[in-house]
């Protein structure tokens, strides 16, 4: 087992508008990207389990080869800045992804 951290340059989360948070995993190179793709590490099921959300709240999972990246987007539990909301920019919701192993 190897930590995902060995394969990535970037793991980040950020608002994609006030109602969604998008997560980017940008891999170190083509080989690292392919390895993670072959292991099918990033998929809807993993996302729902890791974040405790319903499948319909995962808006998309998209490969972006020009940056050897995988990104996924989820519906925010609350819109950015709403009462009870916790992360206005959505920039600290990536953290559980750092625990993934390949």
């Amino acid at each position, binding site marked *: 087992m190897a930590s995902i951290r060995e394969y990535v340059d970037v793991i980040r989360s950020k608002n994609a508008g006030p109602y969604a948070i998008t997560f980017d995993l940008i891999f170190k190179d083509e080989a690292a990207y392919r390895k993670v793709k072959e292991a099918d590490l990033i998929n809807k099921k993993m996302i729902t389990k890791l974040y405790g959300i319903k499948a319909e709240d995962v808006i998309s999972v998209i490969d972006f080869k020009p*940056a050897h990246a995988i990104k996924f*987007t989820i519906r925010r539990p609350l819109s950015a*800045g*709403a009462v009870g909301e916790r992360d*206005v920019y959505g920039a600290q919701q990536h953290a559980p992804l750092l625990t993934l192993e390949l």
Partner: protein
Amino acid sequence: MREIKILSPTAILGYGFPEESFAKGLAKKPDAIAVDAGSTDPGPYYLGAGISFTDKEAVKRDLKIMIKAGKEHNIPVLVGTAGGSGANSHLDWTVEIVREIAAETGLILQTVVIQAELAKAEVEEKFNQGKLKPLAPAEELTKDQLSDTTNIVAQMGVEPIIKALEEEPDLILAGRAYDPVVFAAPAIKAGLPAGLALHMGKILECASIAADPGSGSDCMFGTLRDDHFILEPLNNKRRCTVTSVAAHTLYEKADPYHLHGPGGVINLTNSAFEELDERRVKVSGSKFVADEIYTLKLEGARRVGYRTISIAGTRDAIMIDQIDEIIDEVRKMVNDNFTELNDDSYQLLFRIYGKDGVMGALEPVQEVTSHELGIIIEVVADTQQLANTICSFARSSMLHYGYPGRVATAGNLAFPYSPSDFKAGEVYEFSLHHLLEVDDPVAYFPMQIVNIGAKRSDD
């Protein structure tokens, strides 16, 4: 070959830029200097309250350098989403800054001011006619929520900016605008392809964030031709690489291949990124696909109350073990003490840092392992007075509550500040994130030509 060159000094007007980078950009003889001045990222407060999230002096510093350079080189300066959110109060704030700059420099600035705020009555009429559609995942709004919404803006497309450029002004101050349009308008006006122009704008609006190392406070230069554009960071310490530019294409958007904006989609399915040399990247193949019906995105925020918070911490292991039960008990005490209040007149929240303060419902770690917890007691109520009252009562109740097994009987909370409670004022939530179909992409954006710095006729 036709060519349009754009200098983007900074990612947000007021975030600053090195004058050396800016001077290098000017030496390349740009056709325009453009900047994005806003974002919804800082949250609903700024749009709702009509206040800028950027600092006035910082905005003035950036804008003064840009305006002086624009005048000197006889090229227009374009500002999109003026004042952070682009409602009329944000525009007025920016115009005031420009007046000060004109007075200090002695410049006379022919300025086109483009409004982007919609009258609420008009939006309510469209709402009643069923013409507003929530942009998923935003939800349908109610009549009351719309009625509580203070400022409503529409994101303008490239068309109002092109119309403003026809006046050959020194300065364009646009209200809420789709981020790329102030960068794309000069090129589209010159007849260059919209897909490439808007894609270039999408990257330039973040200035050097797309470079390596990235920075939102440094300049980027874009050169657009008939079939490609070239990006070049203006600080020698930075370079654009295929990875840095492609990675930026992912940033802040759900689908990196299809970027929806006013009137259509920038399609990047066939975009190609190529390293021209050590520091420059060439992009080609991006296409604009116009929608059959032109839609504008409306944004609005509504006031939901007033906030008071109290910040504290606990280091007591006996208390930490029972933190959830203690919070439940404090809630009960507040409820019992204010039985005459309507349930919906206030909301009481406890944010526990060291447990799930950052992620809440999304937090996978359920066990508290920290030796201390940060606690924010928060109340949002119908009035500031009520928020103060409930927060004060919840704070004193939590401070002295005799939880089971307590040995530290002098007090349960460590307060870093006196006073311990902070009035945070008005609280807003986003309410409108809706599409409106329009016949004319310019009609909702009235423009006014003003000579700023000129002697007034009535003087």
